[in-house]
């Protein structure tokens, strides 16, 4: 009976629309009403869950995007704004957006083009240092001209400067990579990531470019129309802006000529070449575009933290981004978004709250554990268990990739209207685009 009911429900887009709106309103109300810090996490997660539900609904795609946008951009910030958790949630939200964008970048490299990259965090570092150096006094150490820090208004330009410089590094990495394949590629990229990190950690000598292991501090907050951006809720919107940009780029490239070339190279290099796809250019484009997403978010990260040093860009970070991509489902854009969100929210919110809760139980004497097993130390342990469980039960990723389908009926109609396939017709039909 439930099945029947659900079938009916899944057919009616109006019922679904009604459901999602009610759901969002109720959970948002819950979030709005809960100021208490300990349990506000539940409605917060429930509101986020609405996005997943939305993804599975059978309603108009444009409407889906619109509802999703409203939830992310309006409902969540608005309903969280009353609680004391507001900035904490927005900080997690900002981190989620940053890592989602990076995972989408890595997804282009690993998921679309099939190039295993274990040093992806390097591009994030490049973006972060780009703004870090010029947005603080650091640039005075080596720049022959100009006065630093540059004002926070220049941040908006630096988002794109960071993207471009990261893309250039992506191409630099691509050069040795073109000769090696498969898992050899993994180790070259790992080496590249480590090289970048170590060099950044040591560039206080002979010329002080990155201030070495002391890091760069007092980075200018971005300014917009003279108004400084320095709280997480404000950075949330900056990250959201870039996130939307990234989503736009990914969605449009995925099923374009370039996107198809990436997947062709992934599936079969030799056949791809035989079809006229240039390997070098295609792979480099994947590295460059993927890297540029990271570069952009790197600048946001630097501005948000107001401090950069090399400890944020370790090999572990690279593997975590890879985990987000694989866990979510390689090549699957919604999957990767979910993967990144799950990992970040788990690590930065849920597991912290869980261990705080367990700690409070143990201090209250309900739970008695020796210090060596104190729950405050267990976050990574629990995360490890969750990773194994997820991987075993969702072997294709949380949301596996599905190929985009074309409307075969429409193509059939349109093809029928044209003369049948043949040389003369083939020429006239596409010759215009053949140079």
């Amino acid at each position, binding site marked *: 009976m439930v099945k029947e009911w659900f079938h009916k429900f899944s057919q009616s887009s109006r019922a679904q629309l009604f459901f999602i709106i009610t759901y969002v309103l*109720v959970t948002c109300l*819950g979030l709005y009403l809960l100021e208490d810090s300990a349990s506000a996490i539940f409605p917060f997660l429930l509101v986020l*869950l609405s996005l997943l*539900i939305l993804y599975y609904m059978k309603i108009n795609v444009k409407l889906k995007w619109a509802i999703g946008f409203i939830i992310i951009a309006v409902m969540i910030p608005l309903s969280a704004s009353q609680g004391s958790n507001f900035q904490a949630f*927005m900080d997690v939200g900002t981190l989620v957006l940053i890592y989602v964008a990076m995972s989408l970048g890595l997804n282009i490299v690993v998921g679309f083009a099939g190039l295993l990259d274990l040093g992806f965090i390097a591009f994030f570092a490049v973006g972060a240092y780009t703004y870090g150096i010029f947005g603080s006094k650091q640039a005075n150490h080596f720049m022959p001209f100009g006065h630093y820090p540059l004002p926070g208004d220049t941040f908006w330009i630096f988002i794109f400067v960071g993207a471009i410089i990261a893309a250039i590094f992506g191409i630099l990495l691509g050069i040795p990579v073109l000769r090696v394949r498969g898992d050899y590629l993994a180790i070259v990229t790992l080496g590249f990531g480590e090289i970048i990190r170590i060099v950044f950690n040591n560039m206080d000598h002979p010329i002080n470019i990155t201030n070495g292991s002391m890091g760069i501090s007092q980075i200018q907050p971005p300014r917009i129309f003279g108004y400084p951006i320095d709280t997480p809720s404000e950075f949330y919107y900056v990250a959201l802006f870039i996130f939307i940009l990234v989503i736009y780029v990914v969605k449009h490239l995925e099923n374009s000529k370039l996107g198809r070339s990436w997947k062709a190279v992934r599936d079969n290099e030799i056949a791809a070449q035989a079809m006229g796809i240039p390997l070098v250019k295609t792979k480099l484009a994947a590295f460059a575009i993927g890297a540029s997403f990271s570069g952009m978010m790197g600048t946001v990260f630097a501005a*948000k933290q107001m401090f950069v040093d090399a400890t*944020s860009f370790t090999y572990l970070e690279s593997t975590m981004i890879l985990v987000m991509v694989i866990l979510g489902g390689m090549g699957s854009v919604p999957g990767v978004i979910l993967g990144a969100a799950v990992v970040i929210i788990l690590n930065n*919110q849920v597991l*912290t709250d869980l261990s705080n809760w367990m700690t409070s139980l143990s201090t209250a004497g309900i739970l008695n554990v020796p*210090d060596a097993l104190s729950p405050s130390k267990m976050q990574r342990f629990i995360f490890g268990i969750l990773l194994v469980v997820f991987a075993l039960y969702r072997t294709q990723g949380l949301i596996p990739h599905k190929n985009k389908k074309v409307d075969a009926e429409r193509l059939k109609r349109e093809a029928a209207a044209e003369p049948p396939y043949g040389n003369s017709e083939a020429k006239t039909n596409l010759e215009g685009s053949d140079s």
Partner: protein
Amino acid sequence: MKLKRFIPLMAVLALVVGLLAGCGSGSSSGKSLKVIKIATQTPLSGGSATLGNAIKLGAQLSVQDYKAKFAKLGYKVVLAPYDDMADPKKGVSNAQDIASDNSILGIVGHLNSGVAIPSSSVYEQNHIAMVSPANTAVELTERGLKSVNRICARDDFQGPAGANYAVKTLKAKKIFIIQDKTAYGSGLASAFRDEAKKLGAKIVGYEGITVGEKDFSGVISQAAATKPDLLYFGGVYAEGGLIIKQARQQGMNMPIMGGDGLDSSSTVSIAGPAVKNVYFSTVVGDVTKTEAGRKFAADYKKQFGKDIEGYSAYGYDCGGVLQQAILNAIKKNGGKLPTRANVETAVRDIHNYDGLATKVDFDNKGDNKYAKIYIYKFDKASYPATEMTEIQKTK
């Protein structure tokens, strides 16, 4: 496909939980003692967790010791330990969490300057007083933040003090410096280097190592070849102990010196007998010389089953300073719960707090006026070491 069927179920469940949570939240207060929280934020997992944990445990003991004083005023202090994993990102994210918990009035932390600097920006925005036991990076207090204080000495005091001792007392003319490429280690080592040069010693090498590795023989053979009179190490005991051991194995019998990162029982257990003739500078006086100190060490051992570390006492003192300031603020506020801003000012106004390890009195930047440097020497393979001299702040 299965998930699809699962979703509506989950959604319904979620709705119910959400509503329940919404209704149930209001009813969880009303105890006899008003709860105040203080947080610690240090690495509790990962490579430097020994030190981070020592700070947390020290603070935990101080909370117990202040229990009675707060109970008298009708309050109860609870410690909220956070794990920053030595990761700046996690630190900031925790800082936001801390800021969102209105009952938290102050924080003890961090261990790593790289985490403390970005996190303190969040504390500053939310007026959460931070008392640092361990961040020696000059930068931290130079930014003029009202909420940031530290009881330990800065690199630009500790490093030169060590150099002074090395060059003047130990008569070192050729010094080889190894540092661990962290903010702490390289900050200390470069301050040491600059002062030693000024005093006329020759720096015959300045090399970096990688934290977490165990084999440093490459750097050590290089050092041995230069035949220095003194080997200086900027870093903490995990690598320091091994460097001491491996240097002695290669026949380097000259004095080895380091900073407060070597002030740990682990230095002895790692280096073993090789630890003889090792010096280190630290801000902590010998805790076990005083009656209170011995009691602290005994309590600590009893409660947590381990010996105190240098940072345990720092953690204890930070907790003490913070709680004393909260007490002052409560009193000033006529027994009512003080705001975070009240506590922030009260911490900065602490005068002549008599701590276990150090006296505390903050200057207008939040640095401890009383931060003294002590030079210790390991005469035998046991901890604590012997105090050689103490150096007053001259500035």
